[in-house]
């Protein structure tokens, strides 16, 4: 079975309307939503992510494709929870307190959804309490994003907060954030760009099984 090539290509090329059309059409002839997701959409985003890591595509195309993927997800997500599809893992993500930037964070959320994770997107200006709540609601990893050097320090506070909950894994990212900074504050993982996030999460959580 398999891949719907037209859908695979439409996601990769960021053709939003076409993705919606194909998904609608396939659902109406009885194709399982999970099949569309796992055989066509997830591979499209994953392959794009790999090309991104190889400098073959850049952020603009990633964002455009991610938006198209989201359009498809919007249709099938409600159906997925009914079918009892098991996600690869559950993570939460948010831009830290004091910061409003979210486009990069949204892209990361999409890459993870694209890899089959359940993602709780907590939005922007997120306090420690918000992340704590998400963990209590099932998040295994907490992903922190900051776009300003002035808001980065809040990441340290969040990491400190979870120090006595060692099963909760913390990952950080964002333009001013570096691998050295991640180490310095004691985060468990770091990704330099959206294309590397899935790998980072997988290695920190242990490959989902």
């Amino acid at each position, binding site marked *: 079975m398999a891949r719907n090539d037209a859908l695979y290509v439409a996601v990769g090329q*960021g053709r939003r309307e076409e993705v919606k059309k194909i998904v609608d059409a396939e659902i109406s002839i009885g194709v399982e939503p999970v099949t569309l997701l796992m055989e066509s959409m997830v591979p499209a985003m994953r392959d794009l992510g790999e090309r991104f890591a*190889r*400098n073959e*595509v*850049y*952020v*603009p*195309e990633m*964002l*455009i494709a991610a*938006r198209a993927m989201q359009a498809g997800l919007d249709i099938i997500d409600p159906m997925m929870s009914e079918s009892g599809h098991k996600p690869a893992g559950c993570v939460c993500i948010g831009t830290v*307190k*004091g*910061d*409003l*930037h*979210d*486009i990069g964070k*949204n892209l990361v959320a999409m890459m993870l959804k694209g890899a089959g994770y359940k993602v709780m997107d907590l939005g*922007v*200006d997120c306090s420690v309490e918000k992340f704590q709540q998400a963990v209590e609601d099932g998040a295994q990893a907490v992903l922190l994003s900051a776009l*300003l*050097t*002035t*808001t980065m320090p809040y990441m340290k506070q969040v990491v400190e907060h979870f120090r006595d909950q060692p099963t909760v894994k913390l990952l950080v990212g964002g333009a*001013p954030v570096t691998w050295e900074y991640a180490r310095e504050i004691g985060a468990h993982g770091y990704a330099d760009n959206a294309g590397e996030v899935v790998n980072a999460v997988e290695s920190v959580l242990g490959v989902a099984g």
Partner: protein
Amino acid sequence: MTVRFITVDGERTAVSADGDRRLDRLAQAAGVRLNLRCGGRGVCMGCRVRVGPGSYRVEGLEQEVPDGETLEVPACRTEVCGPCRVEVPRGSLLSDTIQVDGRFYLSCAAQQETGLFRRTTCEMSPPDEEMITSTEERLRLALGPKAGEDALPLSLVRALKGIDHSGGGPLQVLGERDGDRHRLLEVREAGNGDPLWGVAVDLGTTTVVAVLVDLETGHIAGEVSGYNRQIEVADDVAARITASTEAGGLEKLRRAFIELTLNPLIDRLCAGAGIERSSILALTVAGNTVMQHLMMGLSPETIGHVPFEPLMREYPETSAAVLGVPLHAQALVYLVPAISGYIGGDLTADILAADLHERSGVHLLVDIGTNGEIVLVEDGTLWAASAAAGPAFEGGGLRCGCRAQPGAVERLRALPTGGWSVATIEDRLAVGLCGSAIIDLPAVLLELGFIGATGRLDREALARHGRLSIVVEGGLEEAGVCVVPGEETVRGIDLVVTERELAEILKAKAALHAAVVVLLQRAGRRVEELESLVLAGGFAQYIHLPHAVRIGLLPAVPEHRVERLGNGSLAGSYRALLEPGARAALRGISRMPRTVHLNRQPGFQDAFIDGLMLDT
């Protein structure tokens, strides 16, 4: 450990204390100002130097340079491990001959209104043996009710020394008058014909422009510009906010501006006009909010996070002497009030300069600089947003980007041959691409079919044209376009822009594009309804409008509706020096706009993603 720097100006040394071994910081300590355009990220190669025999760490890797040899390295990515000798080529020194435009075009058609500062005469009656009084009281009487009830300022009376007032007679009075407010500045000999001088400043994050102005005629007697030396402490606005929170950081930044930037600029203005600093009666400054805070010794820390509230938006007029700027004893420094944490006095000044607050209809003002601000006006209602476009348009973040200077590529135009023409400032050999050419590039590539809508280069087509470059960095290949071949450049190296860098340009223009779309949405207006598009900022002067529209940076407004303000920040600052009522108008303007937080607008992300594409 001693490091010797050999430059065209001679030799300087720096001694490395145990902490810092980074070559660019040692250079700074030695007084060698390197071109750190990309902010120390090792991207632009502007700080390349040639190191002699010794041990180093370059990009984190050990490097040994044997006796008798040298190695070219980027100073910002190199650490020294022992005493050494470093040759600094001329091209790596921060150029003092940057071109920053001080020109501006004021909206008012008539002659520039003046009168804020003026000279008048008064008649002092001779001393009367019958009366017990003092010279100061006799003078105050002569000055009339505007002198007020209290004794005159000390400096004013001190300056009476040298003026013959023993027999009474006429005196010249210099004063500032704005509505009901009077301020006496000086009393001079009646026949004194010296002009009254003031200085207006545009305080930019990267560059600062100052003009010397005759306060009675509005004539600009001198113009100087230079880098804001705060760059050496911290590169961009966010970095400066962070640096200001470190111990001693705020003071360091304040002094970098006042002592290393502003005072030298004023000295140059005075030298150029043959006047003394003490004859400058007033100083006005317009700049973004963070810069204004730093200048006044105010912490910009709260601007760095939600809700981005500045400590002050309006500033008290402060004695120039108190701020560390020696001018006339009575000189006060006036700062144009800011609109919000990210939309500063420079925008308030732009709005006044364009008279935007008084126009009817719908108008859009775009100020493209290190940050990118947008104001939408409709019949007295203003919306403002800050787009944080990033440094791409000022040449930052690009390997071969540079500021406007002799040799900067400023124009690219598609040719019928399928290639493009290159024009540089002063027709010199190319040094790099500056802002206007950075806008031209994607437009030209799009027109010639070398680039797709998402910024991907057509490698085959470029290769056929002999303009494909493959750049290897960190073990990965990137495709790039050779914009100017080596033989036409000053260093003999191709000027290449990679796909990744093109993606940065797309992101920068998408931010501005999305800001425009969101503001129009908020106001419930369409692009077609714009009566004018006002472009402010030095770099906006030189943008080729059709290209800016083609790539989706600016909305498609017909050329006859586009106005170029030039340096609007300087224009507003200039008007605040001359016109009674200008300062009140500026205060009113600063309170008008509703600030829009783009990230919080539901349509922003969509507009941003749409805006990423060329061919919007």
